[in-house]
């Protein structure tokens, strides 16, 4: 196991699920729950004769950031593309359920808890969504995670962190969208239909998934930050993500409610204004939208170092 201090400087993009889980909370505080020694692995993969992993590609556990209890879920893209099946899904569901139950127990015993002392959930996404090998069980797992997010709403803030190789796509793109706050790096990608699937369904003319610059311009962290699909854009180190979580951990439930992008009539109205704008603009490229947001030189934004980008960029308001 690498030292926590070494992890803080490590690239988030290059870190595996377990290193992320350990590094996103404070030093020495992470305890893994339902870890590989418990051998909760996929019965479906076993039936199909496919290789299994004893954590089913998802690390779950609990740690602390400052005085805040943090329930961590971290997906591993190297195992079947981070796909979520029955067992991995159940681990996600139960990690969130534990956070809610812990919140309720704690709040009942200590009515004077500060915001910082209440638990939060952090999900480090690296996934293309449903594990197709598990079909309905995988889909159901997604629905159950969504259900837990609704139950956590107004009690336990859920933070999505996205900056790993696979990005966050498919059904898990919906799950991420339903969290309270999304933190990304410029290497993170967030979307529903993955680039390869769009190309396959709509053709190369519509979307060339081999054009990585285009893919990132359309689904990457900088674009998501500009259009408001993510709340914070941070540097590509575990330390930067950790520090962002630490800052968020002290925020109130009202702050988190304000950060949501969906989930109330006002938010829905705002989303619909975005849709109307897209219909009116018919943008040919993400850069058209960046320009519309008030960025005079959208081309320069892509290669701009992060601090300069954050200082200069204009975000879309609708």
């Amino acid at each position: 196991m690498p030292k926590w201090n070494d992890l803080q400087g490590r690239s988030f993009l290059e870190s595996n699920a377990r290193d992320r889980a350990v590094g996103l909370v404070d030093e020495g505080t992470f305890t893994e729950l339902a870890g590989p020694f418990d051998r909760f692995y996929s019965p479906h993969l076993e039936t199909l004769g496919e290789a299994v992993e004893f954590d089913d590609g998802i690390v779950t556990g609990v740690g602390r950031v400052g005085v805040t209890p943090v329930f961590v879920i971290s997906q591993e893209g190297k195992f079947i593309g981070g796909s979520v099946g029955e067992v991995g899904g159940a681990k996600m569901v139960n990690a969130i359920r534990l956070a809610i139950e812990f919140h309720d127990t704690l709040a009942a015993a200590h009515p004077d808890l500060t915001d910082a002392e209440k638990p939060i959930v952090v999900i480090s996404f690296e996934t293309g969504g449903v594990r197709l090998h598990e079909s309905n069980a995988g889909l159901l797992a997604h629905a159950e995670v969504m259900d837990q997010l609704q139950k956590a709403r107004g009690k336990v803030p859920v933070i999505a962190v996205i900056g790993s190789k696979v990005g966050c796509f498919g059904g898990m793109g919906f799950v991420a969208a339903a969290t309270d706050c999304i933190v990304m790096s410029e290497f993170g990608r967030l979307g529903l239909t993955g680039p390869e699937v769009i190309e396959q369904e709509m053709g190369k003319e519509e979307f060339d998934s081999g054009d990585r610059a285009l893919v990132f311009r359309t689904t990457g962290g900088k674009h998501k930050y500009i259009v408001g699909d993510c709340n914070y854009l941070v540097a590509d180190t575990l330390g930067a993500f950790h520090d962002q979580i630490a800052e968020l951990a002290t925020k109130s439930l009202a702050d988190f409610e304000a950060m949501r992008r969906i989930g109330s009539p006002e938010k829905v109205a705002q989303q619909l204004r975005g849709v109307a704008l897209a219909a009116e603009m018919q943008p040919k490229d993400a850069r058209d939208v960046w320009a519309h947001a008030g960025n005079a030189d959208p081309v320069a934004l892509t290669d701009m170092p992060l601090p300069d980008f954050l200082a200069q960029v204009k975000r879309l308001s609708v």
Partner: protein
Amino acid sequence: MSDRTSEKAWNHRSADTAERMASAARFIGPGKVVKADDTVALLEAVIRAGDRVNIEGNNQKQADFLAESLNKVDKSKIHDLHMVQSAVPLPVHLDLFENGIAKKLDFAFGGPQAGRVAQFIREGKLQLGAIHTYLELFGRYFLDLTPKVSLICAYKADRQGNLYTGFNTEDTPTIVEATKFRQGIVIAQVNEIVDTLPRVDIPADWIDAVIESPKPFFLEPLFTRDPALVTDSQILLGMLCLKGIYGEYGVQRINHGIGFLTSAIELLLPTYGEELGLKGKTCSHMILNPHPTMIPAIESGWVDTIHCFGGELGMEEYVRARPDVFFTGPDGSLRSNRAFAQTAGHYALDMFIGGTLQIDKFGNSSTATASRVAGFGGAPNMGCDAKGRRHSTDSWLKCGQEQPTLNRVLGDMPRGKRLVVQGVETFGEGRAPVFVDKLDAWELAENAGLDLPPVMIYGDDLTHVVTEEGIAYLNRCADIEARMAAIRAVAGYTEIGLAAKPEETRALRDAGIVKTPEDLGVDRDRARRDLLAAKSVRDLVTWSGGLYNPPARFRNW
């Protein structure tokens, strides 16, 4: 006497060219411009059956439009061409043989078409002259393989027909010089015709026709290695190389082959290299394409000079902004030149380091496989000891003087030797063993009817082998038995490596002929990606201050 000279004509070649150009005159407008639609007709007018023809097929830029046009000529008139060109990487280069337009091929590098070259030889569609090194082939352009017609490639022409080949000048000057000064015909495809060129690379009176190609020539970023794909194992090898070879010999003048090991080394210079105190003592003069992974070392002040065989997509502005390091023209853009870079590579380098697919038990290495005639481009020129070398450097002299048997061939005469290093993981692509009893090149020689098995680097030129097991200093071996034992000692768990005898390896280590990472004081635990100066293409952009503009396929932000 005067009778005889007046009887014999000495201008057959120019007269023949004049006759061909006369029949092509109707297609050639002012400024030597030919309409793209007339290209096939132009080629039919100037090329005759059996001609020796060069299609500029570089490592990088390709005269692709002219190649496609040549493939459309009437083959009842034009056939049995003898193609002489560096590389045949495009499908259309081989289509010429399929379609009966060309018959014979002399080349240096097959690239993606290597499989078809082998197949066509077997099927009798292609007569192979020889697989050369670049310098060998360029040499023969001026001896016995001079092209009659050359179809070349440039970025821009002006209204007079002057050419700008710029960043990717590569082979063009060599081809044009050989063709034009032997009264041949030179036809150029250009991306655009402009009023004023940034600079003139090829003067108009060496060019017979200029065609604006319907689309820009094909160019591939062949030399970009994404730092994100460098593995810990390659980093270990890089550390061994830096400490046990670069530092040990103080090698200043180097060519890096393309591959992830050399990328790892480039990315370790500002970190591990700096820590070893090697800055200023090694890597000051390089013959290299503008590898993006060199950016951190250049920015950290390691490099004095880089001369380039060709260009690399995305590096244009970075190179332009670093004229102290690169060879640039009065306009500021890079001028690459494969012939000169290879000449420097053959004679003036102290070290070549690269990888390979196979090394046999004697130390011969090759990237040839049983069914592909690929050739090796320039690697053999740099991966050999140039016997004609007469100037001395410390590392060259040290490497030579370490040979225990030098006195048996030269008496007391001092002589140096080029360091030729192969760095490989004992199991390579597809987990295939790199160390083998017999090279696949032998099988290829049989399959394709070659006189010689294609060997990239001969065992007697190879001075060092580096693997995750350590370094074999083959130049310190007295005879072939000792060399074989040293190779076995670093061949790991391959069949060759398993034949190593522990007591023999122990003796080689005591003699300093084999050094393990521990012998060298290299800590295996430190061989991690954290040690790289740049871990991603994004980091390279940052190092370059935004001057490096990577191609779309390398962008993940």
